[in-house]
């Protein structure tokens, strides 16, 4: 048995022993997700145990360096861990913007001291992070942001407003883009700040969406004192970090919802709900739409696979994340449109407030091609950076 086979065997045994049985059942709603954090509550003792056990091994962030509490796994080992988790259908032990977004940026740009302080808290699910990027007048044109941080000797004084801050009302800390130089060209006067949401002067207000949910907030900063040591990277070089992070976010959103293995196929759903005539879906038009979608879905999943293979081989197409983000989100919207058609009038049922019905999924999917950079922004990036078309 080689090292990887040993790793697989040990991982399988460990998971068998320590992953609670209730954590191997599909989540019923978003409420079953575990986000950790100071304000976090657990749905069950099993959920708490599962997060704690995974965090202790660093497996909430399997490939991060062990010295900061990460799993320290190689790519091959992390792949085995994913496969073994998938084999027993384990729920994700910790959902976290810290793991998915901030952590990779800290590992690349933060000081040693910052890494030692913030990374273990993320791995252990102790601190829940949110992202303060967009502002009322800085959406697609993110770099025109106006939230300001003034240098007051030992601290920054932050004033301004962020919007579309995911789960700000439930987060402990926020990583924020703020303007620190008002004379410089817009991309060059931005800094990357970490702010405790409990600081005096920080407030949030949830935004109710067309789906009835409020996953996003407005976040206000009024004379908030932020220690100087909370600056990540160099002053006025925050845009580099923002770009790096946006790439991660795009990949996350692009892959979201569409590449879920083991899900019922759209054709299967259509057949189950609409019934068949001689083994075929009755409505030829619907059948054609489903087929076109399913072929694109296969092509997209293969493209994700190919992107990983190319990255490993050290050569990938430029702006891959823009392409994946654009296509993945547009596909998810199409999927939801077809699901609404399949369901017909029944699909319109709103349900209880906390019930995630098809109609709410459909409405939520419209945000996919807006958040993390709109589809149009992704197409701009491809046209300019990859195709080299003049501005």
């Amino acid at each position, binding site marked *: 048995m080689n090292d990887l086979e040993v790793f697989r065997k040990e991982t399988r045994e460990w998971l068998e022993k320590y992953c609670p049985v209730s954590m191997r059942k599909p989540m019923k709603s978003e409420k079953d997700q575990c986000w950790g954090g100071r304000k976090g509550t657990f749905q069950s003792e099993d959920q708490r145990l599962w997060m704690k056990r995974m965090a202790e091994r660093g497996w909430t962030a399997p490939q991060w360096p062990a010295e900061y509490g990460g799993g320290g796994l190689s790519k091959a080992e992390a792949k085995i861990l994913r496969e073994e988790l998938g084999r027993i259908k384990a729920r994700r032990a910790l959902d976290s913007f810290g793991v998915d977004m901030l952590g990779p940026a800290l590992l690349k740009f933060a000081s040693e001291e910052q890494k030692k302080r913030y990374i273990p808290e993320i791995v252990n699910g102790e601190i829940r992070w949110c992202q303060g990027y967009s502002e009322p007048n800085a959406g697609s044109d993110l770099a025109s942001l106006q939230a300001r941080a003034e240098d007051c000797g030992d601290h920054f004084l932050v004033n301004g407003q962020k919007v579309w801050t995911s789960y700000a009302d439930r987060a402990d800390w926020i990583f924020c883009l703020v303007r620190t130089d008002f004379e410089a060209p817009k991309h060059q006067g931005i800094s990357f700040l970490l702010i405790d949401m409990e600081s005096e002067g920080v407030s949030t207000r949830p935004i109710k969406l067309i789906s009835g949910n409020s996953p996003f907030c407005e976040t206000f900063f009024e004379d908030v004192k932020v220690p100087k040591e909370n600056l990540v990277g160099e002053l006025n070089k925050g845009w580099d970090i923002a770009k790096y992070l946006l790439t991660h976010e795009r990949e996350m959103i692009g892959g979201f919802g569409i590449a879920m293995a083991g899900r019922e*196929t759209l*054709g*299967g759903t*259509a*057949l189950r709900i609409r019934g*068949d005539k001689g*083994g*075929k*879906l009755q409505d030829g038009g619907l*059948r*054609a739409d*489903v*087929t*076109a979608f*399913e*072929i*694109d879905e*296969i*092509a*997209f999943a*293969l*493209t994700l*696979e*190919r992107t990983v*293979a*190319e990255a490993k*081989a050290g050569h990938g*197409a430029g702006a891959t994340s823009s*392409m994946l983000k*654009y*296509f993945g989100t547009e596909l998810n919207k199409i999927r939801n449109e077809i699901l609404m058609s399949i369901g017909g009038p029944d699909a319109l049922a709103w349900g209880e407030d906390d019930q995630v019905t098809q109609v709410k999924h459909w409405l939520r999917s419209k945000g996919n091609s807006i958040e993390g950079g709109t589809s*149009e922004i*992704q*197409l*701009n990036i*491809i*046209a*300019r950076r*990859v*195709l*080299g*078309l*003049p*501005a």
Partner: protein
Amino acid sequence: MALILNEEQELLRDSARDFLNGRSPVAFLRELRDSGREWSDELWTEMADMGWAGIVVPEVYGGLEFGYLGAGLLAEECGRTLASSPFVSSALVCASIVAAKATEEQKSTLLPAIASGELVLALAWREKGIIDPAGTELTVAADGDSFVLQGVKTHVTDGDYAHAFIVPARTGGAAGDREGLSFFLVEKDAEGLEIESTLNADNHRTAQIRFDSVKVGADSLLGEQGQAWASLEKALDIGAISLSAELLGIAEESFERTIEYLKERKQFGVPVGSFQALHHRAAILFCELHLCRSLVLKALEAIDEDSEDLSLLASSAKTKCGRTARLAVNEAVQMHAGIGMTDEYDIGFFMKRAAAARQEYGDEYYHSERFARIRGY
């Protein structure tokens, strides 16, 4: 399972590109057309000398045994320069049937001849009104040890060029049955066989072949009687995937030429490529092409790995590449605008060839119908 090329495959693609750019650029297609010809024996001989005709033929029969992924790269490069040859129909599609069905004796004669390019075969599978090969009606009557073929095959790719045909015919069952189909190898000059060809917009010819009591010997039967279906379906999948690769080449080349043109052409004092209306259309096409490439690579690998998903991937690839190529050539002509409508400019050749390649081995409607059937709805 790789979805990326290894060094050998990259080398093959690069050398094919160099060869085709030098020997058979689009200007060569124009030259053939203007002199009233559709193909060049010399070009095919040179391709065969490089081993293309034997790229999937086992080494023991004189082939390269390089696999279908490599073969697909060649098809794609041929798409880029619109090089015309019987490469797909003879060296890939027909070779696969001979390798799967023929007796050892037949193989030892046929495969080396295919691999050297001296023997060109064409698959005469299509009949009037059908794309589904199970609908084959061409009848066979036994006459002592011989067989007598009666019926008509249509739209035979390279039917004019081939020396002999592989003909799926009905020896049992009824039209619509997968059982009861048999392969016959029929020489071009067999008595009672009549070829009538049509020149198409892409300067290729497709043939209608009439079999009027064509008598063939028992040795012309390829494989067991009534058992042709599996290899026929596989051969057509190979054809569909190879044409998908060619369509990808056609689409990519038209796309790249268009992007270059957008950077050069000026209107209102600026390059037309600076307009966002064109940026987004170009970027969407770029994404579509990227998706097509993933499907084509996976489908080619599926042939090499004898995957059970072969048919599903073949139909996915042919549908997606057909639709994307249609979009690519339409955008190409539109974005070239006036000059794109002229015969003098090359871009129109891509539009014509894409239209024909989309028809070969089943169009998008046939393949999406088949996809839905395989998926069980």
